[in-house]
């Protein structure tokens, strides 16, 4: 296994200039996710449009304290979900997760995952899968909360959810 198979140029590009980096206001929901094995941390915010079955993702912003894989993954995530319906974005999430946890045995669909297919090499390194999924878990959490907020037509300060470690 060569290093370049994991750190594909697409990943390094996203790492060097990540999309969605820097937390933005206002937002509908926020999630902080921690990788307890390494201490990496992401704060991710979403803003949603519409209501009911037609809720779409208007904006994603994040601050990632982590390795190149977690930062690039959050950047690719931003590209993949902004403008999509929440329902579709969760399908992308499922495909990404399946690939990332597939130990290199899952053939990724570029039509669904776009730049996300570059993370197929990461799936061969079990210790790095959590890095690739950190942002996606934060996104899943915010969407669940944000949708609730949209449904009850609450705007403004947003819902914050922190998974920060306790003691």
């Amino acid at each position, binding site marked *: 296994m060569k*290093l370049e198979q994991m*750190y594909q140029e697409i990943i390094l590009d996203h790492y060097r200039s990540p999309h969605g980096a820097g937390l933005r206001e206002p937002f509908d929901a926020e999630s902080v996710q921690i990788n307890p094995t*390494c*201490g990496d*941390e992401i704060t991710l915010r979403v803003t949603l449009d519409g209501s009911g079955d037609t809720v779409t993702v208007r904006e994603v912003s994040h601050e990632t*304290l*982590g*390795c*190149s894989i977690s930062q690039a993954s959050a950047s690719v995530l931003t590209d993949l979900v902004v403008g999509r319906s929440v329902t579709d974005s969760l399908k992308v999430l499922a495909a990404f997760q399946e690939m990332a946890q597939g130990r290199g045995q899952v053939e990724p669909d570029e039509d669904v995952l776009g730049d996300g297919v570059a993370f197929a090499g990461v799936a061969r390194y079990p210790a790095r899968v959590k890095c690739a999924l950190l942002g996606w878990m934060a996104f899943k959490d915010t969407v669940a909360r944000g949708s609730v907020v949209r449904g009850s037509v609450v705007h403004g300060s947003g819902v914050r959810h922190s998974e920060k470690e306790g003691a």
Partner: protein
Amino acid sequence: MTAVASGTAAAVLDIEKIRADFPILSRTVRDDRPLVYLDSGATAQRPRQVLDAERAFLEQHNAAVHRGAHQLAEEATDAYESARARIAAFVGADPNEVVFTKNATEGINLVAYAFGNASVRTALGPESARFALEPGDEIVVTELEHHANLVPWQELCRRTGAVLRWYSVTDDGRLDLDSLELSERTKIVAFAHQSNVLGSVLPVAELVSRARAVGAVTVLDACQSVPHQPVNLTALGVDFAAFSGHKMLGPSGVGVLWGRGELLAALPPFLTGGSMIELVRMEGSTYAPPPQRFEAGVPMTSQAVGLGAAVDYLNGLGMEAVFAHELALTGAALDGLAQVPGVRIIGPRDLADRGGAVSFVVDGVHAHDVGQVLDDRGVAVRVGHHCAWPLHRRFGVAATVRATFAVYNTPDEVAALVDGVHAARDFFGVS
């Protein structure tokens, strides 16, 4: 590769001969790269002598110890108790003061839970009252502790109303002795002998003296010292100490809690059940003297025998020589890494009161990514917070790269580490 020539004591070690005892060191990883194993602080590799001792025990003598009167039971018990005696001698202790545990984490929890049990104060003998904690009592730790010597004390505080306080750490990775004063309410002072991240060796004598002055009990996490330097627990003056077998060339699943005899004799049990009892009636039970009081159930046996063999192996090398060899490697790593631009050592940069853990960050490259490049070159290091999260927070970093050395490592392997860090900077374009 040649035997290490630095240091007079180290010169007696034939490292190539030692390496030949460790079968795993001759394997390759990641596209036929020779394995460079620099993660012995997490778990050490095991020599054939340890593997053989476990196999021989299981093939010839296996039985449940301290039960049964058949021949195998006698032989197994003798092997188990012989291992205890040799391990005790290795750390300057009496065999009756050595309790086998699953690992050091269990050993520290044993002490913490025994204190908690004493604090309940119901139906225990008066001798256990000395361990009872009251709300407002203090348990003191340090900011550099491994979670195993921190979280059990947080939990004991939660259960008893005691208050956790801690010594902080200086910028150069030493314990700041001015950061805290013990009080009459201090009942326990728990600290590492050597930091698993910084490599710094703590001033045990000073901490023991301070604890004694206020009547507090000391608990030493000796996980990173016993495997790497001569340690005499009795002479150190601490009250309890814990270490793990798998970090000292021995098996996993076995560790040691050592306690001063008179303290163990008064300490209530933690885990209860078979073989730790003196007399059992339906209304209640009395307990065996230590160490049996703290070894409930059929214990790990081949692992204890394997740890005995590990201690024999280390004795054969001589712990002074082991220490000198590892210190020479540590010096080479510190010197080599100092030449890499953008590398910041987290811990002392000098060799005084220091052991072989070298942790660092590389400007512009996350520790995980450094570790990945090293792994691609066959160099195995630890990345992350190494179960010392508060310490990493204190240094303002989420994660570090950590290289740790054992007796089987060589200067060439240190050079491979330094080359790999250069390569990581090249790969991520920060050079």
